[in-house]
């Protein structure tokens, strides 16, 4: 539409009287007229109203499970095993290795499906598009563009494992070296 107007040079300017000064001056002038104020104010008010509507769509509280949860004592986990007990409630796999533990997100990095742990093949396999991940979370097959994310994990004062899902660590950003991405035991 907008392209339409400048195109035909021959069409007579019906709306713009010829008496108007050059465009730039007119614009500046327009801003300081009542009409300018009026439209600016109206536009701003409309914008404000629209943005309040947009803000309205983001609630201040969520009825979702607390992202920080207590996962019990490290001794409850078998070394070398991917633990599935928090998968349903918190969407987290806890993997216990000889030197420590880490918490893997159960969200496939491709399109957010939930992969399943294949104990015999020692890999996570996503049912949606077939992405595969090692127990470490590294992707090795399928369309997943990057490894599974890890969540912050630490030992609470009472010796319980605290998993904080609000903090994520991504391997491709080199974040798996950060202190809370791996719990040394």
């Amino acid at each position, binding site marked *: *539409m907008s*392209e339409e107007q400048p195109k035909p040079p021959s069409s007579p300017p019906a709306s713009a009287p010829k008496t108007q000064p050059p465009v730039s001056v007119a614009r500046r002038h327009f801003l300081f007229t009542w009409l300018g104020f009026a439209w600016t104010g109206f536009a701003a008010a409309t914008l404000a109203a629209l943005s309040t509507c947009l803000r309205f769509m983001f609630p201040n509280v969520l009825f979702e499970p607390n992202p920080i949860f207590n996962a019990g004592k490290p001794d409850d986990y078998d070394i070398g095993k991917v633990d599935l007990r928090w*998968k*349903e409630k918190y*969407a987290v796999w806890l993997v216990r290795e000889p030197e420590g533990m880490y918490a893997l997100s159960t969200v496939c990095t*491709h*399109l957010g*499906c*939930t992969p399943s742990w294949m104990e015999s093949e020692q890999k996570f*396999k*996503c*049912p*949606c*598009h*077939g992405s595969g991940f090692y127990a470490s979370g590294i992707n090795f*097959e*399928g*369309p997943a*563009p*990057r490894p599974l994310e890890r969540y912050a994990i630490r030992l609470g004062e009472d010796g319980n494992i605290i998993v904080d899902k609000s903090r994520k660590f991504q391997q*491709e*950003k080199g974040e798996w070296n950060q202190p809370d991405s791996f719990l040394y035991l």
Partner: protein
Amino acid sequence: MGEAIKAAIDAFASPVSIFVGSILVFAVFMTFPKQCTTRWVSAVFAVLFLAFFAFGLTDEHFRGIVTKPDNVPIVAMLFIFGYFTWFAMKKAVDNDERIAKGEPPWEKTEADEKVMVFPYLIYIEFVVALFCSIGLVLWSIFLKAPLEEPANPTISPNPSKAPWYFLGLQEMLVYFDPWIAGVLLPTFIILGLCALPYIDRDTKTSGFYSYAARKMPIMFFMFGFWILWILLIIVGTFLRGPNWNFFGPFEVWDVHKVVPLVNINLSEIIFIKWLSQGLPSNWFLREAPGILIVLFYFAVPPVLMAKTVCKKIYEKVGPERYGVFIILMLMMLALPIKMFLRWGFNLKYIVAIPEFFFNI
């Protein structure tokens, strides 16, 4: 006998064969529209199609997928669109013949006469609406709306599929990252459709069925609609099984099917395979070749084409319109290009910057 045919079809079926086959059929149809719309040829097509379908329905698996309540509309759509494409092309070819003979298109002959809306038009609408109602009621009686297990966020079905009309997009995800397949391409489809009348503005060729008069737009549109949309929906719905693996139409969807996915990024090909180096740690350096290729794709062909193949168009519509047109076209072609790169070279991403979720 039947099993052997099924096995042969299954063995032959692959994204590549289906795509290439469809493009071939499409090319034939577009090149020889007159011949293809003759009664005999179309009858053969129709019979072949129906025969395949009838044959397919004898197969339990095929029947299961095709008659899945939510897939029925796709089947219906196939028949409807098949018929109407033929119908439109038939009319177009007829008109083209008339124009070639110097006669006005058929619509022109009736365009100047006006008829009373009441009752003529309203009657048609009324009856059509009644037929439509009949159709809906019967459909509803014979086919129950699906209802599966209650929603369970922890168990994702394998495969998880979007509603059928978005399966084209989901199929694109095989070749592109979500931000392209799910956001960029749909946006461009919408924008492209919107831009259409502002690029193709020739009012002389409007208001009647014709192929000759609008060869280019129809070809592009049909390619986009049939090959890049309907075909992808068919593949995504009927031929994608567990783990989004490809399955032939008669192949049982086996969850355990393993297909090697040995895709590799362009940067890996260049740096590791060809240069035998490690990947540069700087992402920009690492992806520079890919970025260059993409920039090249969007910068050079338009200029070249403007001077050669599309010279006429360029002159006709001017630089702005040409620019919009060519970008849309390149976007559209990007999909088959990426498909062929994937099939041919196992290329995963041309540009892969997972650090910024930026993969092409």
